[in-house]
Each structure stands twice: as structure tokens, then as C-alpha cells.
């Protein structure tokens, strides 16, 4: 049962990573993902891995919780891996059967790709595990601020996100209550074919929809009564501030960017003998 649990993945401990500015974390994640795709050799990929390990350790989230988020994409990893290993072109052919062939370049590329996706998902989940949805919303709003100049409704968008986040737990509670109530009246949601199951959802969805509309109406009144009249002449209480932690973390991310670029340029010189196994083509 989904009861009284924060939705999303947020893992409530107080760590270095938790206390970073959400804007910084968002930018850092984007930078990290770009670096993952810029990297074209295993040295650079190892640098990415190192930063990820540092981030996970500094976040004090149990490694199991971080890995759990990867579970969802295992199928995608296997599928893309299989596709690449059999179809990637290359000179050193180990095995061939019709259009399927396994090459050295293919194997290297596949291993690289799988790690790249793996790190990408891990890094994103470090963000969602250490940042509350509310902080994320604040961060996104703040980052989008410049768009107000081209009349993009940043404030309205942020308010919609904030209200949505606010009502998710309320609506989950409500859904659970309705499910229980209909179950008590003998409703069966677990058996029958797909059409039967969809039909069985009607007694849940209709009350839920009606309730959502009722809530929306009441919320509208409450907002009116609290003098809401759009973004005009509105002040903002919350201000995000960069702190020393952000500076420290910034140095780490900066080091990663420098590292990845340097490895990309000089990866031949480090160990020329194994160069062909390191570079991804």
C-alpha cells in the first residue's frame, strides 16, 4: 500500500550531496551526461566512473538503493547490448553467421555503451535520491527564469508543478481509499483479461476524477481568497543560494570535464600498446 510515503525516490538523510543547491545539481547532471557522450575512450569513462563513485559515497545513500534504480533499465541494457554486439561493424571479426557478426570493435563498443547508459541512469538517480521534488521544482524555475523575457510563463509553470507535487500524496491516499472501498463491495481488480481489468477500473477512476475536480475548485477559491492574481507584482520569498559545498562540488565537476577532454586528446600517448582496446570507434 502506498501510504504516507514520499513519492519519487528521495532518500532522507542529511549529506553533502543532499545539501547542494538544486540548480547546481541539475547543471552538474547535464554536464555529466554531456561528458559521458563526449568521452570516447575508457580512460575518460573511468574518470566519469570515479566521480560517480565519489558522489554516491558523499550522498550517504545505501548503494542498494542507487542500484535499484538501474533495475528498470536492465532490459534496455541487454537489448541494446545484444543489438550492438551482433551488428557493429569492425575489422577484427571473431565470429560470423549471415548478417550477424561479432567483432573486436563491436565488443569494445558494446561494453562502452552499456557502461555509459549505466552511469547515466545512476547519475540521474543520485540527483533524484538526494533532491526533494520541491527543491527540483525550485531549481528548474530558477534556471528557467531568463525565459520570462520571451514571455514564457515560468511562474505559472512552476506553480502548476508545485501544486501537482503538493497533491500527489493527497490523491494517492484518496486512490487507496477508493480502491479499498470498492474492494469491500466485492470489486475484483486482479483477475480476468485486460478488457475486464480496464472495466474494473471505472469504479475507481470516476470517483477519483470527480474528487480531483472538487479539490481543484476549492483550491481555486482558496487561492483567490489569498489574493492570487497571476505573476504580476508578485514577490518571491524563496531564494536559492550557492554555498561552499557547491564550490567544492564545482571543482570536482570541473576536474571531470578537464579530465575527459585531456584523455580524449592524449589517450594514444598513455599506453600506445593497448590503444586499440581503449579507444571506441
Amino acid at each position, binding site marked *: 500500500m502506498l501510504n504516507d510515503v*514520499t513519492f519519487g525516490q528521495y532518500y532522507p538523510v542529511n549529506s553533502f550531496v543532499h545539501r547542494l543547491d538544486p540548480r547546481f545539481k541539475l547543471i552538474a547532471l547535464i554536464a555529466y551526461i554531456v561528458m559521458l557522450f563526449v568521452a570516447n575512450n575508457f580512460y575518460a569513462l573511468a574518470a566519469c566512473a570515479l566521480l560517480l563513485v565519489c558522489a554516491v559515497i558523499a550522498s550517504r545513500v545505501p548503494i542498494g538503493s542507487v542500484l535499484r534504480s538501474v533495475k528498470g533499465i536492465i532490459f534496455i541494457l541487454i537489448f541494446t547490448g545484444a543489438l550492438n554486439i551482433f551488428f557493429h561493424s569492425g575489422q577484427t571479426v571473431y565470429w560470423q553467421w549471415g548478417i550477424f557478426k561479432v567483432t573486436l570493435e563491436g565488443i569494445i563498443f558494446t561494453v562502452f555503451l552499456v557502461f555509459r547508459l549505466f552511469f547515466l541512469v545512476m547519475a540521474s538517480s543520485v540527483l533524484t535520491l538526494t533532491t526533494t521534488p520541491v527543491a527540483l521544482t525550485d531549481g528548474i524555475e530558477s534556471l528557467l527564469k531568463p525565459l520570462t523575457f520571451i514571455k514564457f510563463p515560468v511562474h505559472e509553470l512552476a506553480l502548476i508543478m508545485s501544486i501537482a507535487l*503538493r497533491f500527489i500524496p493527497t490523491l494517492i491516499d484518496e486512490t487507496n481509499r477508493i480502491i*479499498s472501498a470498492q474492494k*469491500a463491495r466485492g470489486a475484483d481488480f486482479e483477475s480476468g483479461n485486460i478488457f475486464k481489468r480496464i472495466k474494473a477500473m471505472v469504479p475507481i477512476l470516476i470517483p477519483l476524477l470527480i474528487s480531483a475536480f472538487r479539490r481543484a475548485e476549492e483550491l481555486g477559491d*482558496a*487561492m483567490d481568497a489569498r*489574493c492570487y492574481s497571476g505573476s504580476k507584482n508578485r514577490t518571491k*520569498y524563496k531564494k536559492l543560494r550557492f554555498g561552499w559545498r557547491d564550490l567544492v562540488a564545482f571543482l570536482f565537476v570541473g576536474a571531470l570535464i578537464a579530465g575527459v577532454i585531456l584523455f580524449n586528446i592524449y589517450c594514444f600517448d598513455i599506453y600506445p600498446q593497448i590503444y586499440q582496446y581503449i579507444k571506441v570507434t
Partner: protein
Amino acid sequence: MEDIIICENLKYSYPGQNGFAVNGVSFTVGRGEFISVIGHNGSGKSTLARLINGLLEPDEGKLTVLGMDVNEGKNAIEVRRHVGVVFQNPDNQMVASVVEDDIAFGPENIGVEREEIGRRIDWALSAVGMEKYRYATPARLSGGQKQRIAVAGVLAIKPDVLILDESTAMLDPRGRKEVIDVVRKLNKEEGMTIILITHFMEEALLADRTIVMNRGEIVLTGTPEQIFKQGEALQTYNLSLPRISVIAGNLRAAGMEIGNVLKPEELADEILKNFNNRGIYAGQSSYPAAAEAQNPGDWDVEIKNLTFTYSKKSPFATKALNGINLRISDGDFFGIIGHTGSGKSTLVQHLNALIKLPQAEKKYHKPKAKKGMPAPVLPSLTVGKFDLADKKTDFKALRASVGMVFQYPEYQLFAETVFADVAFGLKNFNKKLSAEEVERAVKDSLEIVGLNYEEVKDKSPFDLSGGQKRRVAIAGVIVTRPHILILDEPAAGLDPKGKSEIMELLHKLHREWCKTVIIVSHDMDEVAENCNKVAVISNGEVFACDSPANLFARANELTALGLDVPLTTKISTRIAQNGIIIHSDCTVKDFSDKVIELYGGGKNA
């Protein structure tokens, strides 16, 4: 006193509706006044609140707030800065997921400077006593706490008038008291003008002045003492008297001299005065009735060692039940009371296996016995002949025999017609019924809940009134003729008349339809008045399980748990301090009878 609100012959009708919701209302409110407004559902109280706040524009009449004519130009918006409204449902008033952000919403809207907003948040939180929750998530607060945050959110705009539009209707007694205490403090210490719209007569008593509304008009106005003296007049407006006035009335009718009282202590003192006049200084009323021996019935509920934890294995794990042992006998009108969050709702959901015992889950494996550790105690639960710890139990048959009506059941209606909604459960449980059998069962159950079958069967359930919707929802549960009927807060959110009608209905069902009725409630008076046996749940454990008379004799222990006691207990406790014991079953009627009996037996009679 400066008149802060002046209404002159206000009229308002909702578009598409016949008749005026507010029909020619005139009154004034002075600065710093505390006014309570009472009236049955649909009497126009809430419409009035929306007019004063500028959310609605009057069709006719003149409304002046702080010298501004609300009908003129942009005044309607300006008025909202001066008149704050707290609505009924605390969940539907908050925009942000962090308390301080939510309180900041109002001041942000009117363009208050950042630093000033910070100061206002400090002030508003301390005014409602919630300083500790500045960074909390509303979803994790209790109803009373949420509503106090809603009050703080309105206060941060610094209004001159605070309107509470049935803001306590959805709260438990503790939450209600929290909110009311805050409001009284604001009135006394900050000189805030208060308009309290409420269904609870006990709350209305706290005001300087009470306005009674009926069908859009003000029918009575005066101090609470003046209003509640007019017993019969109030009843014609579909309002009930506060219990204390009922008792006072009964005693007066028996020849006792009872002044105008609004507090239990005052009534106790009045009774003592009467006793003393008759020379009764110590003594006892009739002896308590001997406890009936209870024979085991076919549908007894037996709960042993029941524990339950929500979100096990997550960082949010919360223990809801902690070793419950309870027996509910066949034929009881059983009450389960406790604070919100005490585990009472979790407990009753076990009774029809909405929450299954761990042993009854498909994936259950017996835990291996660890050396040196005592064998784990497994919970057991039987309802009549059903063993809920057994995987093979026919849970569907169990659910047909144990009906469950959730809180606000009207929100679960979904079908196109009343008939289809009521028949839903019946058809789920028994797919082989013929059309005639279904029709007969639906007809019977709609009629027993007091609805006219021919009139409502083809209507959409959403076109019915609030009270009727609740009846339809109850009919949809009892249509399978369950032996045991469980209701979670059956009277929540209803006006006093609606409340007493629902309780009457439950007694009727108990007599004619369902042998055992179990109500989950936090209203002590409701439980004392209706149940023959009561279990008090506190922190996931059974604190006590007894008849109301025996249970409420332990008033001190209940108060120590932060629970309320019924009014009759409050009065008799005070009287007992003077050496006179009154043994009643805690109902208003029995209590009055016992006091009169003792009074009649006095020396000077």
C-alpha cells in the same frame, strides 16, 4: 466600536438556481468582535462568507467592508486583503509542499518584500503555535495541524477580519480544539475580528454574539446565552441544541432550578446548589446495573496479537498496530475510539481482510525458528466461522458478510444511476442473481436507509443532496445483508440534524438488518450516546475495552491520554468531587434521569 463590516439587505442567487441563497441579510460587525454563525446545511452561511470576502458579488444590497463598497470597481480584490477566509478542507487550501512556502504564498501575491515575508512567517507560525513545523510537509501533518497552517497562511496577509467557513468540520476533537484555541487567542490578544461559521453548537457558544441563519435569512441574533435559551425555536430551524442545554432543560422540567449555563462546570455547580438546597451533601444515585453475562455468539470477532507496520523495509516505516487483543461480541453496537493516527482505521480494515494477515498472503513463508530466540508470536483473527489467518478462507464471502462503510462514503459513488451503484456490490458478490432478485434487494436496502425507491432509483447519484448521497452509499454496502457492519466516522462532516439522523439509521439497521454494528469515531459523546461497548485505541494498542459507564469512570486516565470524555462524564466528575456519585450509562437521558432521581430522594423534598 468601529463597524468594520456593514451588510444592508444583501441578496445573492447562484446562476442557474431558483431562489436566493442569501436573501436580504443585514447586520454589522464591530472591530474586534467574535461572531459565530450557525444554521443547517444550505442555510446560506458559506455564501455569506464568500460575499464578505469578495469571492462572490451580491445581486442586490450594499456591503461595506472597512468603508469600501465591495460592489465598486476593484474593491472586491482589495477587500480580500482585509478579510481572510479559512475553508473547510485543509488539504484543498495549500499550494506548496513545504509549510513556509505555503504561508509565503499570500504575502507574495500582494507583493510584500522578501524580508518582511520572513518576519510574517515567523509571526503567523507562532500565532498558531506551529513554529516547529516551518520546514515540514503538509502531507505528514494531522488535520488540526494542517488547518492551523491554513490559518497561518491567511494571517500572513495581515487581514483585519478572519472568517472560518466550517473550518473545524473535518477535524477530530483534538484538531478542533487546536484551531478554536488559536482563533480565540487571536481574538483576545491581537484584537482580530472573527466570524466563525460552524455546525458545532459547543463552538458557537464561545462567541460574543451568535447569528442563526435559515434559508438565506438571519432568523435570530443575540448572545449565545440568549440564543440557546430558545430551545424550540432552534429546532424549527433544523438545528439541535447543545447537549448541555438539553440536560439543563430536562432538569428544569423536573423542577430543579438551573440558571443559564454553557459550560459543564457551571452546570455541575448549579446541580450541586439544587442538591444542597434539598440537603443532599453526599450519597449515591442508583447502583450501576450488573454486567450482563455474554454468551459466545455465531459472529464473534476475536483478535489476538495483531500488529501492522506501514511501508515495511522503507525509511518511512510506521507502526500502526502494536499487539491488539480484542473481542467484539455478536450483537454489539460497538464503538472504537482514539485519535487520528491511533491505528483504529487500520484495525477495522483487517476485519474484512482489506488488509490481510501476513499468514494469509500468497507469498507467505513460515519464518525459520532462530536458535535462542523465542518463536515469533503470530497474529490470529477470526470473524464468526472465518479464520483470517488461513490462505484458503473465502475472502469474498467474508467481505459479503462484513460490510464496510468508509469515511465520506459518498465520495465513492460512481455509477450512472442510484440503482446501478447500489447493485454494484450485490452483483460482485453474487453473479447468479436474477434481475428480480437484484431489484428486490436494491429496493429493500434503499428503503431501509430512508429513501424513496421509485423517486431515486433512476437519478444520478451526483444529483442528490449530501445527506442522501451518504444514504445511497450506505445502501450500497448493506445490500448484501452483512452480519457485521463497520462504519468509519459515519457522521463526519454532517450538520447536527444530519448527524442524529444517521445515528438513528444505524440503530434501525442494528435492530432489523445487521446484528453487529461497529463504529469508528473520535466523538466521545457520540460513542457514549450510542454504543453498548467501547474500545479505546491508543498508539496502536487497546487501552481499554468496556461499557461506556465503566470506561468513562476512568476519566482521569483518558484525559491523561489526551482524549476527551463525554459531557455527562465531565459534569459527574465535578459533582463527584463534592462527594456525590452519579452512576449513569453516560447518555444524556440516563444522566438526567439519575440526577432527577437523586434530587427527588432528598431529605427536604
